[in-house]
């Protein structure tokens, strides 16, 4: 009841924007509150940038804190209010979106982080695995205990890509590095994140990264002066001295591209069956850093420059340079460099990708294995 009231309230507030002749009405459905400072907050920044980009041509509205199984009545209401395009930002909205899409064949739907499409349903995702790899390079160089800590929400492919990318980066710089993983089995559990971080530090971790929806890891690591990486939104403020870098998302790049193609007629409600955005560094959908434009906090650059490697690809290179080079390579494209490119073995010694094989997006979306250096339980791990 509360969420419905709140949602209706925010709908009223949000839709009292400009009354225009016939702007394209773009609606957003968030799973959390826009004040979560994480997932929904980032999507709402994307919505605001989208509105700014197109000005009077479009009108955006949003509903927040929508429980995943109850998304359909919200869609009904948005359609009744004249929504032309509806973005459901969470994986769990999928069933509701696909069902509603059949009832409203003229409405265009976007399923964020989704896995199934329809003539009027496209899927989109901004993925961090490359950025976590870059964070891993940094972490491997900064750790003196060779133990990195990782607080992770759920053992699902998206999070496994993050951890694997992080471990691959760390091992490229420091072959002895271990990534200790602790699972929360929740996206939001501040006390769990705190105790998981404490447990990791007690196990020797001296650099911390995470995939969950609170800045707890940063604050807890900072109490002992350990460097950490920000996730999703800019979390520098939570500990300016210890946040080294992180992952930033720019959902607006995806939203602007989609809406542009809807406006110019490229995307219609009949031809989206094969439209799947899996956007990366090369598309500008994600960025290395804890705040925009700052890939590595200046205070840590000296430390990274002090670590010089004999690198198989670049020869003698310091880690700061290596991070920037790899970032530039991946910004050029996956075919230039990808941390998951074969040959790759998992931590049980099985070859997962052969020499010269570049995993496809489908491979990555279904990724279940753990790479060498990852320590901790791992649900659904291939034998």
């Amino acid at each position, binding site marked *: 009841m*509360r969420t419905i009231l*709140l949602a209706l309230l925010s709908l009223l507030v949000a839709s009292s924007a400009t009354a225009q002749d016939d702007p394209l009405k773009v609606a957003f459905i968030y799973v959390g*509150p826009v*004040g*979560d*400072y994480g997932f929904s*907050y980032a999507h709402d920044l994307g919505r605001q940038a989208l509105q700014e980009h197109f000005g009077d041509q479009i009108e955006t509205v949003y509903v927040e804190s929508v429980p995943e199984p109850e998304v359909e009545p919200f869609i009904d209401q948005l359609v009744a209010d004249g929504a032309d395009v509806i973005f459901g930002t969470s994986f769990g909205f999928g069933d509701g979106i696909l069902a509603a899409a059949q009832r409203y064949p003229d409405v265009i739907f976007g399923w964020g982080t989704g896995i199934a499409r329809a003539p009027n349903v496209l899927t989109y995702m901004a993925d961090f695995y490359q950025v976590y790899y870059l964070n891993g390079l940094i972490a491997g160089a900064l750790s003196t205990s060779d133990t990195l800590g990782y607080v992770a929400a759920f053992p699902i492919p998206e999070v496994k890509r993050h951890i694997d990318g992080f471990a691959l980066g760390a091992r490229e710089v420091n072959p002895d590095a271990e990534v200790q993983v*602790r*699972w929360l*089995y929740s996206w*939001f*559990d*501040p*006390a*769990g994140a*705190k*105790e*998981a971080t*404490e*447990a990791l530090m*007690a*196990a020797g971790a001296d650099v911390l990264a995470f995939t969950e929806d*609170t*800045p*707890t890891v940063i*604050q*807890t690591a900072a109490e002992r002066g350990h460097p950490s990486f920000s996730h999703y*939104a800019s979390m520098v*403020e*939570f*500990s300016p001295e210890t946040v080294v870098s992180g992952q930033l998302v720019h959902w607006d790049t995806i939203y602007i591209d989609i809406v542009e193609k809807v406006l110019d007629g490229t995307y219609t409600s009949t031809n989206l069956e094969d439209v799947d955005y899996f956007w990366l560094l090369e598309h500008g959908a994600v960025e290395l850093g804890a705040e925009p434009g700052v890939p590595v906090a200046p205070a840590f650059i000296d430390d990274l420059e002090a670590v010089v490697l004999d690198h198989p690809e670049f020869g003698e290179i310091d880690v700061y340079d290596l991070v920037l080079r790899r970032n530039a390579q991946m910004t050029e494209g996956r075919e230039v460099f990808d941390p998951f490119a074969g040959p790759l073995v998992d931590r049980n010694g099985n070859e997962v990708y052969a020499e010269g094989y570049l995993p496809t997006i489908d491979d990555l979306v279904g990724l279940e294995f753990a790479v060498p250096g990852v*320590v*901790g*339980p791992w649900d659904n791990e291939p034998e």
Partner: protein
Amino acid sequence: METALVLSTIARALAFSTPLLWAALGEIVAERSGVVNLGVEGMMILGALTGFIVAQSSGDPWLGLVAAAATGAAAALLHAFFAVILRANQYVSGLALTIFGLGLSGLIGRGWVGRPLRNAMEYVSLPFLVDIPVVGPVLFDHQYALTWWGLIVAVALWFVLQHTRIGLIVRTVGENPAAADAAGVPVLRVRIAAVVFGGVMAGIAGGFLSLAYRPSWGQGMTNGLGWIALAMAIFALWDPLRAIFAALLFGAFFTLSFSLQDRFPPQLLTMMPYLFTILALTLTSLRKGDRSFGAPEALGEPYARGER
């Protein structure tokens, strides 16, 4: 290695269970007077928010804690009004308070998200104790003052409840309000005071979260701790001293679910507190005759003179 694990488990259990202990102690007092308050989660989160706002604005976390306690008291007064004075169903009223608290704090807290508390509570180091070899640095160096105060308050409450006239009055009101009334005890006023005391304690528990444990505000940041505190009050069989034991046990399960994650399925450990609470409930109903084990006789029953 194992000693280190045991010590760090105790240390983390103490820290994690601090808000649980404060909130559970408050609930124990309220329930001993005969009033169940399922609004603990709501009172906690409101306390966490106002505590954060006042501390952030004033720069003084202890002022924030006072605000958190006052907020908890105000929220509890609502419950007392409905459940004690109007004699509404205690369970419904408390549940409503939790839903109300979570919603209102989310709404008001919007502008306070995304920034850490600028002047958080600091760790205290207990003199002398910290110098004990091995044990001292782990247990007595890296804790908040509220953790130690919680233990002291628990012992004090036990003493008051068991060995003073005030305690006798509170217990009598919870066991047999009609008899207390006949003896001239103002039953409703005692119950209101006990509920408000519970609110103060829940507010402090919430303040601990946003001012010390994780010094920032986030919507829904209590994340169910209020419910665990309720379970703890039952598991402790409404006894403040047993609540210390319950806090350490629940805390140990929680922290071990992370430190032993590579050896045990963590879900097994996180469900233990609830399993233990069910066991405790079973135990109480099996030993109904034994006064030292049972729930307060009039728990959950609104009192009005002349009924029964």
